[in-house]
């Protein structure tokens, strides 16, 4: 203990350090602390609870004095939580001495505080030195202990919320990079083709001044000169046409590829996100993002960005040419430009936010569809078509509303720009005529100017349109990057341990888990030996499936660790780890396709013989043969064409085919009748041999073969033992069993009388 320096002081929130140094005695050192952010009435406030090697101290910011309690026999520190608020309570044998409330962000710190408290209490009461577990690393920011595998603190890491940069569109560069060569060519082509389109107006100048005006003044037309100028015009037009074609083709090619990359990358990333992410998202929204929005970005890059680039180049070139011809007239011509720039700036943000809203509401419309179409049977069964139609109508109505609002800003914008350009043209006329009258320019110059300006202002107009499109694309890009920036909550380890084969030993150490703020399991300790069959039983909602989710690492534990063959599963590569697990889910899900494809889902290269063997083992073979196309029959979307029990058997076959070391059966046979279940059971018994198996079943008879039964109640293990032991104990399991046995008896009696009845009927 002596070696523990007062290091913790360094990390202590600054407001407390001074106050505390006055409180502590010379040789007292801080071991752990918990920042309190709520008062007893659950108002926001600040405070702190500290465990030192001598006592517990606490103070709220507006309290006058510190409260302290020395370690003594019977002192107890516990924490519980409800709806995101933790409660830390200090008891002596007679009463509660104090309690503190805090938001759950601090839960790690609270656990650490309790741990330190218990160690110190033990030391002070029994004189036993705490084991020097102090060697494990600690987070430099919050002081939480890190396990060997964690290089980043799980507490602090999750608080890292840096918003992405506003310049989202630039982030598309990541996807454009592989095509930079072609993009450069495309850009050069754009440059050239734009330059080519600028030749004709330039030629009008000499045509006017050297041919037409002299002719008006009585000179004959110089046909050679005319020919020269006109062929120049034609040549420029043809050149512009060719270059324009080349650049459009080149850039569309690139943008299609960028779009496809964007889409696949986003989808791949999405697939790797944890179940937690999908739990919080709506299907329609995600589909809208990956489908419609990547397409919009694609279009933006291929058409509008190109136009925009052309416009900018054109405007710059025109400006240069104009200035080179006559700086004063050029200045007047370019005057509306800053005003337009200012206008763009004015509406840009508004438009972007507006378009983001439009996107969101569009996703909402999608959501309604994604919600009702799969649930159509329920909708029809309860005759709620009208209501669903109304819901869709309402979503569309909101879509209109928001679009109307955006369009109001937007529709004002374009005419304003047009008006400005018209006025600009007028000003150029006035100023030009005045200059001609002063003999400062020739008629040709003014004509050329007007020709240029025509194009120039048209470009301005289309450029202003691009504002809205850019903002739309920016909004879409942002929503795509929302997905791409999301870090999976079951992250891949930085330096993974590869286990090509596993024994199948599973160990749960102090496992605690919560969905959001809702605490589901706590303090689960369990070692499952390789090859052992474990039955998980307990009431509905007792956390059986949750435990399976944790073992499969669909979610990461919030406390403790799960080890397979002695390795924390967080250090194993995810896909590799899951290859060792055969899982049959409570709600079997089949994909659109044939039965064979569905069975071979986990092992696409399986031979037909393997598929049939797996189907036989799962007792699916016979019913499959009864289908019109046998193994090539289509199962319909989500397996609709099959019965519940048939779906279950296919998913059992699917799990068996990959020949996993660990087999997890979550209510795998709940939808089949008892006879079929017995058959499957028999087949499974062979297969289960030698594999670590975790089986969940409400029908306790299913689990008779299990080596051990784990009885769960409200997220805790209440009993462990085999059937006979647990029956002898007459505890929780016993009650559960008796209650079921009674039902089964009744069922069987009903069944027998029914068969007798029908037999009697046949005799007649």
């Amino acid at each position, binding site marked *: 203990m002596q070696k523990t320096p007062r290091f913790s002081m360094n990390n202590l929130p600054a407001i407390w350090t001074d106050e505390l140094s006055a409180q502590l005695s010379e040789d007292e050192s801080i071991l752990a602390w918990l920042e309190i952010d*709520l008062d*007893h*009435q*659950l*108002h*926001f*406030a600040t405070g702190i609870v500290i465990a030192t090697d001598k006592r517990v101290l606490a103070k709220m910011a507006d309290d006058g004095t510190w409260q302290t309690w020395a370690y003594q026999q019977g002192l107890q520190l516990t924490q519980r939580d*409800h*709806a*995101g*608020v933790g409660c830390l*309570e200090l*008891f002596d044998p*007679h*009463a*509660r001495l104090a*309690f503190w*409330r805090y*938001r*759950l*962000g601090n839960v790690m710190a609270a656990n650490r505080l309790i741990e330190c408290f218990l160690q110190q209490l033990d030391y002070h009461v029994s004189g036993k030195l705490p084991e020097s577990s102090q060697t494990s690393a600690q987070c430099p920011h919050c002081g939480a202990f890190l396990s060997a595998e964690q290089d980043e603190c799980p507490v602090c890491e*999750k*608080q890292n*919320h*840096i*918003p*992405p940069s*506003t310049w*989202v569109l630039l982030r598309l560069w990541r996807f454009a990079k592989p095509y930079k060569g072609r993009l450069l060519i495309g850009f050069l082509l754009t440059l050239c083709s734009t330059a080519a389109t600028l030749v004709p107006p330039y030629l009008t100048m000499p045509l006017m001044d050297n041919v037409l005006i002299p002719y008006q003044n009585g000179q004959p037309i110089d046909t050679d000169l005319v020919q020269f100028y006109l062929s120049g015009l034609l040549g420029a037009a043809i050149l512009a046409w060719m270059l324009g074609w080349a650049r459009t083709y080149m850039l569309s090619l690139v943008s299609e590829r960028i779009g496809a990359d964007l889409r696949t990358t986003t989808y791949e990333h999405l697939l790797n996100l944890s179940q937690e992410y999908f739990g*919080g*998202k*709506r299907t329609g*929204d995600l589909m809208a993002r990956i489908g419609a929005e990547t397409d919009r970005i694609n279009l933006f890059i291929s058409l509008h960005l190109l136009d925009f680039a052309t416009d900018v180049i054109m405007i710059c070139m025109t400006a240069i040419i104009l200035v080179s011809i006559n700086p004063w007239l050029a200045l007047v011509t370019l005057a509306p430009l800053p005003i337009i720039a200012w206008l763009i700036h004015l509406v840009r943000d508004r438009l972007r*936010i507006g378009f983001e*809203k439009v996107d*969101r509401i569009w996703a909402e419309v999608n959501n309604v569809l994604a919600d009702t179409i799969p649930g159509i049977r329920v909708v029809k069964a309860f005759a709620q078509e009208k209501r669903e139609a109304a819901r869709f109508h309402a979503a569309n109505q909101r879509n209109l509303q928001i679009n109307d609002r955006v369009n109001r800003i937007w529709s004002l914008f374009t005419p304003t720009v047009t008006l400005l350009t018209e006025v600009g043209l007028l000003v150029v006329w006035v100023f030009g005529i005045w200059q001609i009258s002063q003999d400062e320019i020739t008629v040709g110059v003014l004509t050329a100017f007007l020709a240029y300006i025509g194009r120039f202002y048209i470009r301005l107009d289309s450029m202003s349109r691009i504002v809205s499109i850019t903002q739309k694309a920016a909004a879409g890009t*942002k929503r795509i990057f*929302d997905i791409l920036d999301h870090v999976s909550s079951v992250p891949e380890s930085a330096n993974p341990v590869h286990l090509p084969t596993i024994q199948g030993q599973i160990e749960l150490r102090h496992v605690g888990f919560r969905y*959001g*703020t809702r605490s589901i399991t706590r303090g689960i300790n369990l070692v499952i030996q390789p090859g052992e069959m474990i039955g998980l039983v307990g009431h509905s909602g007792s956390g059986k499936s949750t435990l399976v989710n944790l073992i499969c690492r669909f979610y990461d534990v919030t406390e403790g660790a799960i080890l397979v063959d002695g390795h924390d599963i967080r250090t194993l590569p995810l896909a590799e780890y899951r290859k060792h697990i055969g899982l049959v889910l409570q709600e079997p899900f089949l994909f659109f396709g044939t039965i064979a494809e569905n069975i071979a889902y986990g092992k696409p290269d399986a031979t037909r013989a393997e598929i049939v063997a797996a189907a036989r083992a799962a007792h699916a073979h016979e019913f499959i043969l009864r289908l019109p196309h046998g193994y090539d029959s289509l199962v319909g979307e989500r397996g609709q064409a099959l019965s519940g029990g048939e779906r279950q058997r296919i998913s059992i076959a699917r799990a068996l085919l990959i020949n996993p070391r660990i087999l997890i059966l979550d209510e795998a046979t709940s939808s089949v009748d008892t006879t079929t279940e017995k058959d499957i059971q028999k087949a499974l018994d062979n297969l289960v041999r030698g594999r670590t198996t975790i089986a969940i079943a409400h029908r306790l008879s299913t689990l008779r073969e299990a080596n051990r039964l784990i009885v769960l109640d*409200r997220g805790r293990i209440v009993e462990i033992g085999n059937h006979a032991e647990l029956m002898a104990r007459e505890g929780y399991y016993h009650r559960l069993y008796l209650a079921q046995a009674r039902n089964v008896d009744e069922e069987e009696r009903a069944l027998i009388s029914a068969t007798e009845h029908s037999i009697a009927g046949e005799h007649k």
Partner: protein
Amino acid sequence: MSATVTYQLTRNSYGRLVLTDQSGVTHEGVIPVRSFPVTDPGQGIALIDSHGHELAWIERFDDLPEAYRVLIESELASREFMPEIKRITKVSGFITPSTWHVETDRGAAVLILKGEENIRRLTASSLMITDNHGIHFLLRDRTALDRHSRKLLDHFL
């Protein structure tokens, strides 16, 4: 309804509610739970024992003797945590995750909004905002907010 109940309710020295029912059985650690905490907090309060079983049902608070009501209300007050946002003073940006500085009926607080999907529409004008730790912030009526807050909020809707 008359203010008669068939059980006794007290608070023990550990700060827990204790319910003694008609047959004299005592349940320690009784927890009051609202059935509709958001849409109708006053209707339907259940007293739940530590195993999650319902012990008593209170249709409305008015049905209770004064002393019990105070007891239950104080317990509810110390359990329920749904700060009501009164004002949004500052947001770090309009792109999530975004840090909001808000004033609530329980004092000033900072919340981190992880994504727009954490804003849930309850009715046309009321919203529930869930922060990164899963704390729910209630916005009872967004039309009643001041202009500044409304403008900030509007970016996220």
